[in-house]
Structures are given as C-alpha cells and as structure tokens.
C-alpha cells in the first residue's frame, strides 16, 4: 500500500532527475512528458484503490504512526493527485513548444517535475511537518521557474512572490512549533484526536488563526493575495498555467484539510472569519480583474476571486457546501490552467497579451476561439459546463444555510466574471487587430501548433465531460465531503484505532 501512495511522488522526482541530466537535448522535455504520463497512471491506480477500499494510509521507512511519516489518501487527496497529474501532463506537452531552448537548457523541465512532486507530496502527506517540507520543495521549484529567463518583469514579480511566500512559510513553521508544544505530535490524525482534549482551547484557536494566515497567503485570499497578480503574468505561459492551476489550490487544500480535521473545535469563530474572508476575496478579485487590460492579469485576478468560492464552501461547513468546495476545486484547476494556456497561444500568434494591442483572433484561429469559450464560460458559470454545477451547488448550500446575502455576492461575482470574459472575447478575438496586422498562424510550425493545441483541447473536453455528466463527479464529491466531515475513517486508516 505504501508503494502505491509514494509512486506519485517517486515518479516526478525520477523524471526530474532524468530530465535534468538530458536537459541539453530534446530528451529533457520528453522525460518530463513521459514522467507526467507515468504519474497519471500511478495516480489513477491510487484512485481506483481509494474508491474500492476507502481511506488508505502507508508509513515511510516502516516506522509506525504517529512516530513515522504517514502518507494518506482519502477521496480528496486522491482526486487532487489525479488532477495534478492531468495538469502536469497537459502543461508538459504544452511546454515542449512554449519553452525556449535557452530556458530548457537551464533545466526548466526538471524543475517543473520537482514542482509537481512538491504539489503531489503536499496532497498526500499525513504529517504536519512533512507538509511544510513539501511546501518548501514546491516553493523552491516555483522560485526557480518564476525567474527563469531573468527579464526585468520576472525579477520584479519574483521579488514580491518570494518575499510574501517566505513570510507565510515562517508563520506556518511557528504554528507547527506551537502545535507541537501543545500536543507533542505532528501527525494529523493524531492531532485530530488530541486537540479536542486540550484544556486550553483558546490557544488552539490562536494557532488555528496562524495556520489560516499562513495557508491564506498560499491560497491568495483577501487581504493576503497581493503577490499573485504581481507575479503570475510575468513568467512563461507554461509556468503561469501550472502555477494558476495548482499552487494556490495547495493552500486551499491545506485549509480544507486542517479546518475539517484538526481545527473544528471553535467553528463559530474560525469559520465565520473564513466566511468573511471568502466574500471579500470573491469581490476584490473580480473587481481587480475588471480594472485590468491584460489577458494574463485579468486571469490572475480571477484566480483570487475563484479561490473565494472554495473558501466559502469550507466556511459554511455543511455537507452540501463541502461538496461544492471539492467540486469547485477540481473544476477550477482544469479551467484556469486551460485559460492560461489559451492566453499563451493567443500571445504567440497575435504578438502580445495586452488586450488593446491584439485582435482578430477569431478570424485567424476559430478553433482557438472555441477552445477559449469553453473554459471562459465554465469559469463564469454557464450551463452546461463544469463551472455551472460548481456554482450551483455552492449557492444552493449558501441559501440552505440561510445566508441570502452571501449567495447574492456569489452570484454577482459570477456576473462580473462574465463581464471580464466578454471583454477578453471582444478585444482579443472579435474586434479587428488595432494595427491592421492580422495575427498569423504561420508563425507557429505544425509541430508547435499540435503541442500547443492538444492539451488545450484535452482540458476543454474534460470541462465539457464534467459539465454534461456531472452525476458521478457530484457523487464522488459527496463521498469526499462525507469523509471530510466525519474524520473517523481517516484516523482509523492512519493510526489503526477508531475514535
């Protein structure tokens, strides 16, 4: 069992090492693609096991929990790892055409794989300190990817990204220290047993807030999101896409994990804070996007606003709301990564990401236009795409909880999202090019076109599938929510004892 759990971590690491040793030739990028494909197979195997047997756990080095490091996969972890592998595969194919040879020789594809290993590790670990280590693996790799190429913009965005993420890391570490001081353990399942028995519940809430701020920076929630729109539009498009799809979601995942498993003693306070954070995040993100005029900057602000929806689901803490949050998480990774990939192709054939300086894409590349519409409409919540169901479940959960105002905010933010998406559509695809220079497809070779469009089409199809046949996905999310709200299966899988 423990091998099944650790394969999705081993594979990207090995792919990274191989890719680095072959970085000067085409072998580097192929190693990355093959590694992502192998990881998809491994995570698929993990997924089927989890579906069959429920929560599975394994121990590293044969040390029993809670002394050793546990890897745990419940529904949520398993689906996150699968989606990570899907995103990694799509982006690594895309990167074959997107990343210049100069940057590939610096070891781009190897760092990419290490980033994926860090993300998958954060989803699978069952130990708080190990989570910190995976965060750092992810962080170091993302630093490298972000500034690779070394343009002025990248350095500038990189400084802000590095600075704020380091602060969050240190807060997380301090929180871990205090947690250990209170409980004497860092195994999450063990914490779930010990924390409710502590006398000083006030201090637990203080530590909970510390974790909330630390993960909040990673997830880019209000008022801690400033690093995201400062940095995400600067690196190569493949980097943007994988960051947009996965990195903030690791923060959201960590919030969901900690605030459904460990910090459930003072819900009336912590989750009320989360609710307000969610509302402000949705609103500021979408308003920030409305003010932007750059393809990638608009998308960056939309990441922030969409994170708000996921936090909203967590904050309500009802079964239906958690279903919505999990569904939203999965849907959003696919859609957002895809939108950044589209932005990359648009910029390559039209010459810029500034909306005022591009146009006429619909006339030259109607297929790309359609492929943009699928994730864009899904993001805004049009039926019958995946985003519609995600928003529908969340709004329904909000109304059932008797919070009409919050539901109104969620719907209004959805409407403003349509505004931003139509702005991109009108400026970049519909209206003619401002300098009368029609974008040319011929700037891309046939092989490049294939590598760039295949992942976009694949992710778009996935969005449609989730949208048209939501039933199994919703059922899965329901199962996942049931596991999150009743942690006894998780604890039993890790510690071998029931509550």
């Amino acid at each position, binding site marked *: 069992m423990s091998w099944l759990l650790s394969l999705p971590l081993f594979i990207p690491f090995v792919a990274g090492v191989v890719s680095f040793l072959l970085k000067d030739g085409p072998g580097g990028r192929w190693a990355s693609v093959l590694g992502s494909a192998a990881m998809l197979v491994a995570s698929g195997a993990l997924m089927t096991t989890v579906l069959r047997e429920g929560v599975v756990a394994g121990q590293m080095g044969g040390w029993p929990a809670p002394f050793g490091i546990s890897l745990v996969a419940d529904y949520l972890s398993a689906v996150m790892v699968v989606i990570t592998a899907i995103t990694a595969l799509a982006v690594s194919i895309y990167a074959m055409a997107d990343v210049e040879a100069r940057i590939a020789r610096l070891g781009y594809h190897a760092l990419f794989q290490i980033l994926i290993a860090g993300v998958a590790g954060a989803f699978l670990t069952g130990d708080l300190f190990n989570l910190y280590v995976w965060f*750092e693996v992810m962080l170091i790799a993302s*630093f490298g990817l972000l500034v690779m190429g070394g343009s002025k913009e990248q*350095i*500038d965005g990189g*400084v*802000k990204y590095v600075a704020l993420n380091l602060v969050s890391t240190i807060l997380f570490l*301090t929180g*871990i*220290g205090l947690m250990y001081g209170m409980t004497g353990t860092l195994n999450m399942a063990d914490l779930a047993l010990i924390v409710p028995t502590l006398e000083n519940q006030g201090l637990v809430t203080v530590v909970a807030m510390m974790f909330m701020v630390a993960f909040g920076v990673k997830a880019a929630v209000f008022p801690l999101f400033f690093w995201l729109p400062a940095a995400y539009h600067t690196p190569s498009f493949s980097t943007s896409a994988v960051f947009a799809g996965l990195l903030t979601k690791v923060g959201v995942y960590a919030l969901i994990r900690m605030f459904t498993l460990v910090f459930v003693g003072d819900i009336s306070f912590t989750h009320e804070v989360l609710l307000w954070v969610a509302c402000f995040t949705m609103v500021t993100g979408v308003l920030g996007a409305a003010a932007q005029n*750059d393809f990638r900057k608009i998308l960056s602000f939309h990441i922030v606003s969409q994170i708000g929806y996921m936090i909203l689901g967590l904050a309500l803490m009802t079964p239906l709301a958690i279903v919505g949050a999990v569904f939203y998480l999965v849907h959003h990774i696919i859609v957002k990564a895809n939108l950044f990939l589209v932005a990359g192709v648009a910029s390559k054939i039209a010459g810029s990401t500034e909306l005022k300086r591009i146009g006429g894409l619909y006339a030259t590349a109607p297929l790309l236009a359609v492929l943009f519409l699928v994730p864009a409409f899904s993001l805004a919540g049009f039926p019958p795409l995946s985003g519609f169901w995600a928003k529908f479940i969340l709004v329904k959960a909000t109304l059932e909880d008797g919070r009409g105002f919050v539901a109104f905010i969620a719907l209004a933010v959805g409407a403003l999202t349509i505004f931003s998406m139509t702005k991109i559509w009108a400026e970049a695809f519909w209206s003619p090019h401002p300098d009368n220079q029609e974008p040319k497809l011929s700037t891309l070779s046939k092989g490049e076109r294939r590598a760039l469009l295949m992942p976009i089409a694949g992710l778009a199809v996935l969005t449609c599938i989730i949208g048209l046949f939501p039933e199994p996905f919703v059922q899965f999310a329901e199962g996942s929510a049931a596991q999150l709200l009743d942690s006894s299966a998780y604890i039993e899988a890790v510690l071998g004892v029931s509550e």
Partner: protein
Amino acid sequence: MEVLLSLVVGALVAAAIYLMLSRDLLRFLFGLILISNAANLSIFVSGRLISGAPPLIEKGQDFPVGEVANALPQALVLTAIVIGFGLFAFALVLTLRAYRSLGTLDTDEMRVAEPKDPS
C-alpha cells in the same frame, strides 16, 4: 529557561518586524532571517528544555538510560534551518539580481511588473 527563551523569541520577532516594515529589500531580508530564527527557537522551546543527556543509546542497550533531551524538535529545527538556508541563499541571489537589473532595492520603486499607469 523556557520563559527566558520565550522572551528571546519575542525580542527577535519584534526586531524582525521592525526590519520587515522597511521599504529596503535587504532590510526586509534581514528581518526574515531574524524571524525564521525566532520560529526555529520556538520549535526548540516547545520540545521542553531539560538538562538531560544527549539522546544517544549506549552500546548493548535498547533504549536510552536516564533523562535524555527530546530529539524530535532538534531534528525538526535542523530540517527547518537547512531549508531556510536554501531559501535565503536563493533570496539573496535574487536580491542581487534585482539590484543589478532594476537599479534599486526600494520596494516602492519596483513597479516594472505592475506599472502605475497601465497602458
């Protein structure tokens, strides 16, 4: 001993925050180094401080004899120090690159990625 070290942590955090509020990127980095040391110290303190022996097992024994120090927080701190070292080395190189290519370390002037007048 715990009280004393807690006070040290407090002093470190206070100094670090003072430094981190500065607009100068280098001062911010120094602040980060101080606060990360404060975090490491707080992990160390949370393992309870006793004047025990090092947690080494004598030859022929199955477990350490007598009162020994708690080894886990030390292992955690060591890991955190190593990771922190790597991160700060990177941040330092980045700061140097930023100074070279942007010509300033004043964070208010770093507006290449987010120009004041979005045109």
